[in-house]
């Protein structure tokens, strides 16, 4: 190769490298913006800490298929979660806390930790209650979140407080305990207020941390304190009954299963 040729080669190489570097500069923020954690992106149980998870997840979707409740979905660009990664929206379909954790063993890359076998040790997120809207906090008898919590009386406990307003009732106030809350979101799904008064967020958006210089005098007192697919039943009973002669007629006249005699059950 002549000197000119060599120079040309070097120049060309430098050009390519430069172009690559420019591309890299544009490419990096794209990756970073996708690969940062979202407050709402609840991961499957057994997911490694977010940074490791992001690095390992191949976005193959095998965990999505393995979940018997179709809880998980792979994020698309417009979703509030890093693209292609599995996440769930508790208010739609929460994690049902399967004892055999079927989503974890199928993950090929280990983004879901194979060592994770005890579902109660999941820490997908932490529940947080809006104390102004929560019906139980207002003194009504609700506590649905507490009743349905799979780790009831550990993750959610009831703080029973005299109701000064009526002076003859109590408030059964649900309290979240971060030591046990798995972040499954069953509570968020079931909460009867129009926008859920209890919701699960990633830990880092909820929890504070004491400074290392401060040593609490009585250990254990410092806990975080915060004050299956429901649809419109009418649509469930009357699917596609828009053409019925009058409300209820479509349901009453529908054949099969319940016609005359009822659901699958003759002895």
């Amino acid at each position, binding site marked *: 190769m002549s000197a000119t040729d060599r120079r040309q080669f070097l120049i060309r190489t430098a050009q390519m490298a430069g172009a690559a570097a420019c*591309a890299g500069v544009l490419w990096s923020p794209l990756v970073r913006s996708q*690969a940062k954690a979202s407050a709402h992106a609840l991961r499957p149980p057994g997911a490694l800490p977010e940074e490791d998870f992001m*690095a390992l997840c191949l*976005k*193959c*979707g*095998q965990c999505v*298929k393995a979940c018997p409740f179709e809880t998980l*979905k792979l994020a698309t660009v417009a979703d509030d979660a890093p693209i292609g990664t599995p996440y769930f929206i508790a208010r739609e379909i929460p994690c049902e806390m399967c004892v055999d954790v079927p989503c974890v063993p199928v993950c090929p*890359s280990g983004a879901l930790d194979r060592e994770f076998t005890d579902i109660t040790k999941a820490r997908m997120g932490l529940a947080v209650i809006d104390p102004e809207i929560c019906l139980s906090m207002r003194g009504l008898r609700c506590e649905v979140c507490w009743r349905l919590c799979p780790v009831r009386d550990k993750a959610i406990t009831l703080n029973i407080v005299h109701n000064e307003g009526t002076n003859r009732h109590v408030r059964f106030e649900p309290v979240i305990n971060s030591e046990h809350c798995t972040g499954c979101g069953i509570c968020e799904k079931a909460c009867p207020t129009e926008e859920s008064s209890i919701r699960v967020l990633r830990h880092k958006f909820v929890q504070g941390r004491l400074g290392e210089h401060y040593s609490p005098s009585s250990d254990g007192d410092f806990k975080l304190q915060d004050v299956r697919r429901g649809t419109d039943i009418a649509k469930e009973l009357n699917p596609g009954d828009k053409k019925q002669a009058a409300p209820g007629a479509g349901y009453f006249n529908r054949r099969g299963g319940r016609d005359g005699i009822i659901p699958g059950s003759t002895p």
Partner: protein
Amino acid sequence: MTEKQKDMAVPGKSVRAEIRHFQMPDTLGGKLRVWRFLIARRFIQVSILVLFMGTLHYGWTLFNQLVLTGNMSSSRLFGVIPLSDPFAVLQVIASLQWPHMDALIGAAIVLAVYLLLGGRVFCAWACPVNMVADLANWLREKWGIRSMFIVPSKTRYWALLLTLILSFILGVAAFEWVSPIAIMHRELIYGIGLGFIAVLGIFIFDLLVMARGWCGHFCPLGAFWSVVGRTAQIRVAFDDASCTRCGDCVKECPEPSVLSFKEAAQHGMVRSGECTNCGKCIVVCPENSLSFNLRACIRSNSALRSEHGSTS
């Protein structure tokens, strides 16, 4: 003589005055025969997606196991055999994370298969973007749109290098987060989102801006497979004797640089890892000078030939 003619010239072989060119047969049978590799490729590309979709949405099983779970980034065949995209796994490793055995075994299996078949067989026979790129290319040629500018095809190797460097720096698999191939197959299987615009983008780019823009110049996955493809055991064999240098193969080839007559004549085959084994050159050659064959057989043939000298 032009460079091309020099290249095409064979010592002791006169350039024929009359050169035949490819003629599309009139009969349907003939047409199908011409399209045979295209049909096979589309069949496999679509089947892969169909198997994924059917398993996910309809729970298809065989041998009492789900047929094919996951997507082309990583999957499981019959619930047992892991398969992974080796490039994706490589990126994960480059980001200093060691994935679980399943991913590594899966990558190894896929890699082994493509080492045998030819790395870029993925591009022509599996990759879903190929269907988009081919369509764009066909339209572009039909409408006579020319590339707006030239970019060296080696750029994709820089993209490959950049992918690995960025993976290292950023700590995540850099290409997997933006890959339009992954977007396409993942979202076709799991649900299409706004990101599918990337696929549309490739189509428009290939149609209006640059011929074979994405696949031929930028795709780092293709670059990866090209590197893997060096050891391909199935190659396009070249019979120099019958070749008239009509150049129809070069016109059709999506990677024309792999069709160097000198090299092909020298080795009896297309040796470049960049050859996708798409078979377009084979069906288009009016002299049937090209065919698929095992590398081993080609070698032995060529050895035979050189022993006995050229036949012309």
